[in-house]
């Protein structure tokens, strides 16, 4: 057999292996990208099903009913005007609708803000004055009992609204369980004329609330 004939099988094997590697690599990359950037299941209202893993988040309306949260839902009242002493509390319910336990983490991020000019002619940002806080409880009743009045809510909201706020530890939610979260935003009473705007631009802050769940082994 000639040397050239001997080489041909090796050429084909090497070529085939290389092509397979490239194809597998391409598939993995594409799959990872799709899985990373797409997380909605539009036909099922905000319930994400991957295997048996399902997270649902709802927010409490003024009549006490719960409405599912999606990327269009505004949890805080857009029309509220914050002044010194103003406090707003919103309630969220996190439910495990699947068969797999998961840990979840709540994060609040500032997605945008507008600067304004105060009575002294100085520019200021509203996020330098607002205070934020978060508390969780296993039942709705416990949740609302932990914030019976405005003073209790004020005591919880002590963090500054920086660009990103996240809970320190991840809560565990077993299948079928629910957990409740209260988010509090307030304007401290002692905020004075340094945040009293005179400009045409109304100072404001845009907040995004993200709840992330990760599967854990049962």
């Amino acid at each position, binding site marked *: 057999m000639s040397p050239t004939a001997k080489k041909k099988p090796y050429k084909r094997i090497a*070529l085939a292996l290389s092509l397979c590697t490239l194809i597998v690599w391409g598939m993995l990359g594409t799959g990872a990208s799709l*899985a990373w950037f797409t997380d909605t299941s539009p036909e099922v209202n905000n319930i994400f099903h991957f295997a048996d893993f399902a997270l649902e988040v709802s927010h409490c309306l003024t009549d006490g009913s719960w409405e599912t949260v999606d*990327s269009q839902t505004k949890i805080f009242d*857009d029309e509220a005007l914050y*002044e010194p*002493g103003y406090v707003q509390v919103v309630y969220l319910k996190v439910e495990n609708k699947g068969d797999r336990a998961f840990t979840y983490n709540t994060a609040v991020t500032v*997605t945008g803000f507008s600067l304004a000019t105060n009575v002294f002619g100085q520019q200021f940002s509203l996020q330098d004055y607002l205070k934020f806080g978060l508390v969780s409880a296993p039942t709705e009743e416990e949740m609302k009992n932990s914030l019976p009045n405005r003073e209790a809510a004020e005591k919880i909201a002590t963090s500054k609204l920086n660009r990103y706020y996240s809970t320190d530890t991840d809560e565990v939610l077993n299948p079928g369980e629910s957990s409740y979260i209260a988010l509090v935003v307030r304007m401290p009473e002692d905020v004075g004329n340094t945040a009293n705007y005179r400009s045409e631009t109304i100072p404001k802050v845009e907040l995004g*609330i993200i709840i992330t*769940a*990760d599967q854990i082994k049962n």
Partner: protein
Amino acid sequence: MRKLYREFFYIPKNGKVCEKVMLARIATTIAIVVVCFAAMGISAYAYFSCNVTSGANVIKTANFEAKVTVLDAENVPVAQADTQSSMQAYQLPAGTYTVKLEKGTSSAETGFCIIYVGETKYHTQQIGVDVTATNNIRPYVEFQLDFKEATAVSIQSHWGTSSHYSYNCTSENGHYITNSEPIKTIVVGTDTPKPVIHTVISGENLVGIAEKYGTSVSRIAAYNSIADPGNIQAGQIINIPPADWQLPEKAGTTTREAQ
């Protein structure tokens, strides 16, 4: 292309592999393996985690601005001394003035005012929207100024709530602010002292008013001809009797000299 193909996929004719080619093949293989594992890890993580994101929540603020009107004794508005300052400043000659403070047109919420009379500072009640029977917010507050000498007055509107300032305000509607403390008074000729005027607010009674002005319920009731001291109405004007005013004797009483 043919050269690249030969370089990476063909074993050289003499069976030996050039070191450079070997290193290139190994580096490429390792890079591909690392990328594959990374992609597998990312896809596994993305597969077993998810998140819910809300819409954009807008938090916006209100502001407070007061409309200040200072009228002299002839009800003529007094011009500001300095329009550049964040405070409304006036240089007022001796005389009497009426100051009215109300919510400005661009004000979106409530606040209060600080009135600087010389070195002294007064906090007013809250002024603005959301006036109810139970809160301490008024649509306006009005004061009288009585100066025996030229005095600088500054008025600054302040954004703030009631629990810190207005419930503990140092000046209420109808108060009478004067710079004529004895040490500072310049008296030209004689001057008939004017009564202090107090406007009753909801929840007040004559006992509290008498205590506030250092007088007694009976003196106030007699000075204002109030038949029932326990029955005063919110908004009622009470004249506080001067210290040297004598309480009249009751009708029908007689005085007998001791024998």
